[in-house]
């Protein structure tokens, strides 16, 4: 009898902790999304009212689209660049340590600081980008106040900051691959492209899934850079969902509606995770 219950008893503390840290807050958020919190009065249960309003809230639906566009584009570019860098720097070479260390510097800078640095770089009057464009064309470039350029500019910042993360994970993955298949391919006269396509990529698939998922999920919750650099503007062109949720819940005190928005974002993120997992499973 004791042997039957011992494993359960051993995992119970961890399971309860995990439950308390994930399921309980999630359940509370769900409950919050079904309520309204009039200032200074008792919260009232409103059923699915917040979700009904959400379905017709063009601003929020637009922000979900912006978030999706941001997350997919940033993750894709970071993956391609990270993989390229990992392939380029996987072998031994001089100053390897210095180069690899310097590559990860952007990742260790606080996102708010990154936002401030890039806001200065993008400044239309004294920023580097504007300076270059003015030198070449004689015209000013207002990156962050241009509705077409603002979102790509934010994506570029994310790519600058988080490509090193992709690079590190993929480099570790590449270096842990068994060498025998590569040696056999070399003996058989396979070209580098064929080796990459038929050996490296398939063998690296589990690492790629993890890297893309971690980075993608993080990109869906981007907040700091947007908050610092554009506040969601110009207009609503960089208004990502997290910014809108934050404003709704904390600035506008619509806590229930903000929670409903958060649940909607959660479903979008889950959809993204499923899509990535299935895409990689299908290509296996």
């Amino acid at each position, binding site marked *: 009898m004791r042997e039957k219950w011992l494993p359960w008893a051993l995992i119970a503390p961890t399971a309860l902790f995990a439950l308390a840290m994930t399921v309980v807050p999630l359940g509370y958020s769900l409950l919050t999304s079904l309520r309204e919190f009039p200032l200074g009065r008792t919260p009232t249960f409103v059923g699915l009212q917040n979700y009904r309003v959400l379905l017709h809230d063009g601003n929020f639906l637009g922000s979900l689209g912006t978030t999706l566009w941001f997350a997919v584009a940033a993750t894709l570019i970071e993956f391609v660049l990270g993989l390229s860098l990992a392939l380029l720097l996987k072998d031994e070479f001089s100053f390897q340590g210095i180069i690899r260390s310097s590559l990860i510097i952007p990742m260790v800078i606080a996102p708010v600081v990154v936002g401030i640095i890039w806001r200065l770089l993008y400044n239309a009057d004294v920023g580097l980008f504007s300076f270059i464009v003015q030198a070449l064309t004689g015209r000013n470039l207002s990156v962050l106040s241009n509705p077409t350029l603002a979102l790509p500019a934010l994506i570029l910042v994310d790519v600058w900051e988080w490509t090193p993360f992709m690079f590190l994970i993929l480099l570790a993955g590449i270096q842990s691959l068994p060498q025998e298949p590569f040696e056999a391919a070399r003996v058989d006269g396979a070209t580098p492209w064929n080796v990459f396509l038929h050996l490296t990529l398939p063998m690296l698939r589990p690492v790629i899934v993890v890297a893309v998922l971690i980075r993608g999920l993080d990109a869906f919750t981007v907040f700091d850079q947007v908050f610092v650099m554009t506040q969601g503007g110009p207009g609503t062109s960089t208004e990502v969902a997290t910014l809108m949720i934050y404003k709704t819940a904390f600035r*506008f005190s619509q806590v229930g509606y903000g929670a409903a928005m958060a649940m909607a974002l959660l479903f979008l993120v889950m959809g993204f995770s499923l899509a990535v997992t299935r895409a990689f499973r299908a290509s296996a």
Partner: protein
Amino acid sequence: MDVLKDEILPQFEKETGIGTEWVEADFSGWLQKALNDGQTRAGAFDIYVMDDLWVPRFAGAGYLANLEELGFSVDTDFVPCALDLGYWPPKNGLRQPGIDAKAKPVLFSLPLVSDVQLLFYRNDIYDRPPATWDDIFRMARERSNTAKRQYGWVTRGVKGNPIANSYFVLLHAFGGDIFAENWKVAFNSPQGVEALEFYLRLLEYEPPGVAEFDSDQEGETLLQGNAHAATMWTGWCSQTDDPLRSRVIHKIDFDVPPKQVNRIAKLGLFMAGIAASAPHKPQALEFLTWFSRPDVQIRFARAGGVPYKMAAFKDPVARKNCRWLDAILNALTMGVPSPRTSDWSKVEDILGTELNRALLEKGNARRHLDAAAAEATAFLKSAGYPAA
């Protein structure tokens, strides 16, 4: 705020023997912490330092203690409009739905820093303070030289609160208002449109990219000598004469923003209220009482703080040390606060988004103000306002 933290609080501790702990956070982060504390009644803080537009939210929700019940008594030396912002329901103007029209205003908070938007202008460009907005435009047209990065005007254009605050002064100066009777949205009135069209006309004489400017970029443009005038918060005053911060030392003067139809300044005071759940209410009250003493207010003003007592504004040493005090007092007497409703932030965000769009398009003032008015009206209706 630095003067309060670095000079006044140590004096309070020394004089009363009461220890203090100053919790510092960014504006939004602090709002979040304070709201959480108020809602959960956790008692993590004794005094909430609030933007004046938070007072309706905190007082309306019951997060603040009634100061008069705690024993605070008001004297006649307060700058009236600064003190008025501490009452809920408001002493004047519209009352939020659900609040009894006859309910007596209760003092829930006191001013801490009398922040107000002033006109900052270059005294080497302007012979005398600009009396009207037309003077600003004329000088901007005559003296701007964009090739040499000399701009007649600079503004905060980033969406939301910054651009809404910039526009607020012009809207009122041109005879408009945010709301009319019964919370009817009024910023898209002919006066509102005229004010926005004027704001957009000034763009020609402003730095490129003002649509992304917040107060830091606006202030830097002025302090680096690239702009000739701007409306900015009082926190920038002392920096204009600081050689480490400014390239135009003693070249910037201060005044109430100019007149068109009306002459007003936008109030944006920092207020202090005692948390309803404060664990040390008597000590918190003692601080507020001590800080509002005329001699302490004078010390605060002499050290560079912006006081809220007339005695401090009249103190010759303070006026000599801080040459902007007269302008601040004048601005306070003509001050207009943000609408006194806990839902103002949402309306401000709606208005600020459309203003930013108009700024990007450099036109379509009427269309964007109508769009903002329609969205704001729909929101207000859903929130129970009689807006029609």
